[in-house]
């Protein structure tokens, strides 16, 4: 007799029904599978099943040179590639004790905030679409397209950018790009008003989100929620402000916090973050310093093309970095940064060789997904969709 898969679940009590949602359900934002136990319309138990997108990135990292890991990190959370690049690069730079020039730092802040806008726009569009507001999706993707064009301009790639490298940036930003970003930044607050006009006061949207999927502050901490999910429950924490990295201490911004702990609170937090992010973009553009975009560390950073053609030394370093990598002093570092979804941590262990001994990614989606059961139990099936949208998970980040 064929065996039932071990993931099949028996109802725990009489009168309940097991319902599978996903992994191909359009509103699960990827390949999330939820096993729901329902009594009528009410959920009595909810169990997320993940791993459909597990690609063993952490194992692959151990077989690559430090600089070869950067393109792998894009693929973890594909909606905020630069945030992943940044967290990894910062971790390795901390291991190396490498100082990054100011222009590279400011460019990192600029691109990182554009990444946050990109990610929040996808979230807002799909979240609203899940709840039946289709127009918002088209508006959000219109602006997202502009952001993706900026990514393409700096890195040649729309999504898998790998623009941040260990020791600085991959390329000098092209001429005229900052002016284009400036134009976008001037226009964008008006666009956010448009989204808010469609949603914030919309009675249907409010009914679908207010008082739904509640998460108290104590529960949020205990269950390990992070980012806007935690801030929506009244916990005032933002790593950009509380543990500044890559020069965030030079920027002024507010951290939106709401105390209601429902879907609407998380929505307001993220929409406010869109406005704050564009403020940071404006500050970064206004104060962009001049200077090099790579650290002065010839054994770690690849030389310029021009130097390679004219200087013997540069050619040798290039050859050595590409063929043998570079050694990183033994030690370990946990670098946490504020991704659009919350605390993204890279734990990198070095044993002194040119390949990382262990890379562990603390994915914010993985952490937030645990909160889903807490939010949904006792609620209605239809509200699960709202709850999934409100924790903004990316399954690539969850499964790695």
């Amino acid at each position, binding site marked *: 007799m064929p065996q039932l898969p*071990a993931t099949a679940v028996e109802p725990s009590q009489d009168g309940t029904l097991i319902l599978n949602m996903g992994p191909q359900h359009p509103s699960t934002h990827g390949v999330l599978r939820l096993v729901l136990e329902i009594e009528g319309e009410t959920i009595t138990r909810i169990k997320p099943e993940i791993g459909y997108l597990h690609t063993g990135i952490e194992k692959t990292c151990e077989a690559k040179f430090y600089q070869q890991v950067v393109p792998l990190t894009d693929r973890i959370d594909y909606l905020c590639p630069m945030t992943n690049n940044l967290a990894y690069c910062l971790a390795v730079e901390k291991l190396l004790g490498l100082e990054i020039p100011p222009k590279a730092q400011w460019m990192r802040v600029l691109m990182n905030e554009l990444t946050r806008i990109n990610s929040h726009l996808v979230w807002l569009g799909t979240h609203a679409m899940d709840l039946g507001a289709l127009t918002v999706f088209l508006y959000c993707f219109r602006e997202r397209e502009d952001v993706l064009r900026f990514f393409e301009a700096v890195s040649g790639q729309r999504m898998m950018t790998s623009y941040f490298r260990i020791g600085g940036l991959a390329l000098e930003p092209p001429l005229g790009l900052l002016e284009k970003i400036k134009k976008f930044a001037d226009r964008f607050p008006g666009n956010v008003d448009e989204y808010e006009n469609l949603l914030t006061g919309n009675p249907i949207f409010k009914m679908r989100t207010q008082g739904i999927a509640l998460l108290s502050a104590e529960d949020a901490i205990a269950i*390990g929620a992070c980012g806007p999910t935690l801030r929506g429950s009244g916990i005032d924490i933002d790593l950009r402000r509380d543990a500044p990295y890559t020069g965030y201490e030079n920027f002024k911004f507010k951290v939106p916090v709401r105390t209601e702990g429902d879907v609407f609170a998380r929505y307001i937090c993220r929409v406010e973050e869109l406005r704050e992010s564009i403020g940071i973009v404006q500050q970064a553009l206004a104060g962009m310093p001049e200077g090099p975009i790579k650290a002065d560390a010839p054994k770690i950073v690849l030389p310029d093309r021009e130097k390679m053609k004219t200087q013997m030394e540069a050619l040798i370093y290039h050859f050595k970095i590409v063929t043998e990598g570079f050694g990183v002093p033994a030690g370990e570092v946990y670098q946490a940064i504020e991704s659009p979804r919350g605390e993204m941590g890279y734990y990198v262990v070095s044993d002194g060789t040119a390949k990382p001994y262990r890379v562990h990614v603390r994915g914010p989606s993985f952490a937030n997904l645990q909160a889903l059961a807490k939010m949904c139990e006792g609620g209605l099936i239809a509200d699960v969709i709202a709850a999934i949208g409100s924790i903004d998970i990316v399954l690539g980040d969850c499964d790695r």
Partner: protein
Amino acid sequence: MALAPPITDIEMLKSHPALACLLQWNPAVVQAVKYDREELTIWVEKDAIREACAILRDAREYPFNYLSDLTCVDWYPSEPRFEVVYHLLSISTKERVRLKTRLDGSSPALESVTSVWPSANFYEREVFDLFGVRFTGHPNLKRIMMPDDWEGYPLRKDYPVEGYR
């Protein structure tokens, strides 16, 4: 920027709130400490890890009340082979501390911290799935990333990166 050498002397570090808290509770559980690259690591006795976490979570002045991350490192072929790593964060003071505990390679097991932080649930399942470390007292210890009938523990160092098993 040159790297400062790590500090491993308990006396020099005991002003750090996490270490002070553990020493005040029971100095015997602290095996070693290291302060390197502005991060504090405390090696804790294997059997005391759950209690140490509970003590740090409930500390009055500096509660390390948030479990940021839980993972494992395999030091194959040296023994003790596994190091389970806990990254704690204090929501109020934003300080971090790293706890570590060492485990032998033969049937590695230690007490689960799910009773201290429910959030440890997924992390411990992940460590169990990929390293084969068992957590006693875990409510639902089964594979999370790999299929249920998978053989072997992929993140162990003696597991091949590519090719057939």
